[in-house]
């Protein structure tokens, strides 16, 4: 291997580091429960919630932090959260049932996204807050509430298509929400149906990393809320959705070196860094780089709670540049947020057993096959490039040379690549070793997992620290009493 290895080391918090320093536990669990195996850490979720809460504190804001359930199906995570003051945002009938069953009372649940009649009925029946997508859904809800004589339903109106004066901020078109310039009809409908729906406020969720676009949307929401008050409605909250992001990598310099090298590889001035010369969205057009890098910005110093803080401090263009947080506070509005990925930062990892390590005859990167399918490790699907950590079986071998590898899944399918990237590892993995993919809890654990070719989906365990040692149980067996002063299975020795 000529060039120095281009590592993309994961950022590991205290608990993830500690778990990875317990190879015996990880191997025992994978031996017993099979590969791949997902591990979640409910207490980390509670700790992350506190981080978001402290941003609320700084800006003196009140309101609900709602976990976007779709990011992970774990029961343990949901139940642990039920033991805090957080809420949950559900996007399907199953998620709503799960949330209610985990102990969330309806005042702590919002129902978002495309809804079928069953979902809408259960939401209205249990008095959870419904995030209404548009006039049609509002009509549907009103009919349902009247027909089944359900309680008056609390609603948030999801808006989209926010506009600015001066600079036109182009936003990606969204499938969801009511364009803000059509909000008048929606407000009229709310007033028409005031016997069956109660307006809590307005909502948006933009799929973008740009703070400016979100600030524009929040600014627009404040103006619509003002219109609500002008109509005699009494809105009390703004729901600004999620998308606060995660900082995945430990070292920004590695990310910069890697992306520069990838650019060079696409331009052909260095050997390829990917299987088949894949460019992750970049392409070479007669020596000039074209396209855009289709990767998650994995090194993001301003992510999660810090991103929220930056957004709240952002000046509102149509309110004389006063910070958005000050406006929310002054207008007496509650702030609802719906982080998924950001709330799950550092909350879990995915383990996969190494089945085969093969050196290609013509040299080059080693071909490593794992007991897992590409869809079991969703990092690549989300454009997150991050190295797995090698967890050797048995006694650690003396440190060897770094190696370049390609990681293959276990499906009988050419495209079953865990990642298309050539991965650099500090040591050669051997059959029987585990590769630990860190920080997969947000969207990269069970969102895309299938049972293709009748291969198993990953089992899931919840793990927590008690008196300095790791304890665990099956995800479905976990309840807050388990970790917060109850019984668990002491793995002795492991720490």
């Amino acid at each position: 291997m000529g060039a120095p290895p281009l590592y993309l080391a994961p950022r590991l918090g205290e608990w993830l580091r500690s778990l990875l320093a317990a190879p015996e536990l990880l191997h025992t669990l994978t031996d017993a429960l099979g590969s791949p195996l997902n591990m979640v850490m409910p207490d980390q979720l509670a700790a992350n919630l506190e981080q978001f809460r402290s941003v609320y504190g700084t800006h003196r804001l009140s309101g609900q932090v709602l976990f976007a359930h779709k990011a992970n199906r774990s029961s343990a995570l949901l139940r642990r959260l039920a033991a805090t003051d957080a809420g949950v945002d559900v996007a399907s009938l199953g998620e709503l049932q799960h949330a209610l069953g985990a102990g969330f009372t309806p005042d702590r649940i919002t129902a978002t996204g495309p809804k079928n009649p069953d979902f809408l009925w259960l939401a209205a029946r249990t008095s959870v807050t419904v995030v209404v997508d548009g006039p049609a859904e509002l009509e549907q809800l009103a009919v349902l509430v009247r027909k089944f004589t359900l309680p008056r339903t609390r609603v948030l109106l999801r808006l989209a298509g926010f506009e600015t004066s001066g600079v036109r901020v182009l936003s990606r078109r969204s499938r969801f929400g009511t364009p803000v310039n059509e909000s008048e009809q929606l407000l009229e409908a709310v007033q028409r149906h005031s016997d069956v729906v109660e307006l809590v406020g307005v909502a948006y969720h933009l799929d973008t990393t740009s703070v400016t676009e979100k600030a524009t949307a929040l600014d627009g929401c404040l103006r619509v809320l003002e219109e609500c008050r002008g109509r005699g409605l009494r809105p009390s909250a703004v729901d600004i959705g999620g998308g606060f992001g995660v900082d995945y990598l430990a070292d920004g310099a590695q990310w910069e070196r890697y992306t520069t090298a990838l650019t060079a590889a696409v331009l052909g001035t260095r050997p390829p860094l990917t299987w088949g010369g894949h460019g992750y969205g970049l392409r070479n057009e007669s020596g000039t780089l074209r396209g855009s890098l289709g990767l998650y910005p994995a090194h993001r110093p301003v992510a999660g709670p810090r991103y929220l803080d930056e957004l709240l401090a952002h000046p509102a263009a149509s309110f004389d540049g006063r910070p958005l947080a000050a406006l929310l506070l002054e207008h007496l509005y509650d702030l609802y947020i719906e982080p998924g990925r950001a709330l799950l930062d550092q909350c879990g990892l995915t383990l996969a057993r190494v089945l085969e390590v093969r050196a290609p005859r013509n040299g080059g990167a080693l071909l490593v096959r794992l007991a897992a399918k590409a869809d079991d490790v969703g990092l690549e699907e989300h454009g997150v490039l991050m190295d797995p950590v090698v967890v050797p079986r048995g006694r650690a071998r003396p440190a060897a040379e770094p190696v370049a590898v390609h990681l293959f899944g276990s499906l009988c399918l050419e495209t079953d690549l865990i990642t298309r990237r050539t991965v650099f590892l500090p040591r050669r993995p051997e059959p029987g070793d585990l590769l630990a993919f860190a920080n997969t809890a947000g969207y990269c654990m069970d969102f895309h997992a299938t049972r293709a070719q009748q291969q198993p989906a990953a089992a899931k365990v919840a793990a927590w620290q008690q008196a300095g040692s790791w304890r665990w149980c099956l995800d479905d067996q976990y309840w807050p009493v388990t970790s917060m002063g109850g019984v668990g299975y002491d793995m002795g020795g492991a720490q």
Partner: protein
Amino acid sequence: MRYDSITEAIGNTPLVRIDPAVHGLAHIDLYAKLELLNPFGSVKDRAAWNMAGPRLAEAAAHGSQVVELSSGNTAKALAVLAGMYGLTFKSVTNRMRVPEIKDLLLLLGAEIEELPGQSECLDPTATDDPLTLFHRTLSEPGSAYLHTDQYFNPRNTEAHLAGTGPEIVKDLDGRAPDWFIACVGTAGSSTGVARVLREHDPAVRVVGLVAAKSDFIPGIRTIDEAHQVGLFDPGTYDSIEAVDSDEAIEGMLTLNRRCGILAGPTGGAAYFGAVRRLKAARAASSARQSAVFIVCDRVESYMSYVRRRRPDLFGRPRRANSPADLTDAEVQAAPAIGVEDARTWIGTGAPLVVDLRSPYAFAALHIDGSVNIVDELFEELLHGGLPFSRTRPVLLACPVGEKSARYAALLNRMGHPDVRSLAGGIIAWRDAGAPLVRD
């Protein structure tokens, strides 16, 4: 000098020698090519005029709109040129990062479109990046755009082949300098000038400066971004070196404060990169050498950029009666009054109720009979002294009772005998069920 059109004033900029006492390089004659003296303020005037000029008359006949991907000087120059021909100009950018330039563009009547940020829930199969979509709209049948395409248009480079480069050679008495240092933006000026200089003397060494990768210097690309520029050819440069924003500002300050050259950060980066490179090269040669760098534009547009990075440069004198001067003990000792007592007090008609929230929040809901003076304005008022008579009791209200406590303490210190802060603020007032009205 008399001209028929301002466009004739483009080019023929001075080449000014930097005092060796400032740069400290004994064997070097260092010259600054003052592109900031172009009529619209930057080196981009040349490229903009050369790219758009020949097509403007026809575009005016068709009522086309001039379009360019630019968030800076090219946009500025094109906005001016388009306006001269009665055309509109649209600037499409990733992000307007320099607020002064953005305001100037709006003042010039430009339309600005910012492209959307990266998707948070990434779809790796979506290969249509915003730029591809931009180009698609330009080439839609029936669209009437004059797209100058500065990153790919050879007429960008030509402007410097015909203008900037030969001017430098002429001013150096027909000789090319030993060194040429330029920042890489569209690569137009560095490529064009380098080609002219090399034709005169193949030994000229060309240094390209790029921004440090995680940094931002207006008008300079990072090395990865440079690869996306059609005019960029790494072979143009003998070396490509990175400059960060601190260094750019350092260089800028030297030019501003010591040389009488009111350059912006891009020119500062060029100066800094030039001196750094020449210092390193000095050891290798004792012969007298000449070097030229380009001063791209002026400092005035970058005040907020500099303030963000170097607040120390804008130290302001302390002002009297500032809430920042209060001690924690003073704030804690500020007289406060709970909601119930405040209602009774207001009922007597005695206190003037001052609501410190923004006018928008005040307009939405407020305590009946209150006066709105937003905190920023209130602070300004207090610098000049007490804005109320001492005989008039005052109740201050803010969202949670924090700001009001601070101002109550300040009014106290200024000698007001009866000022109180509404404990818990308007939120506590609302939560206690006390009435809030809209007028």
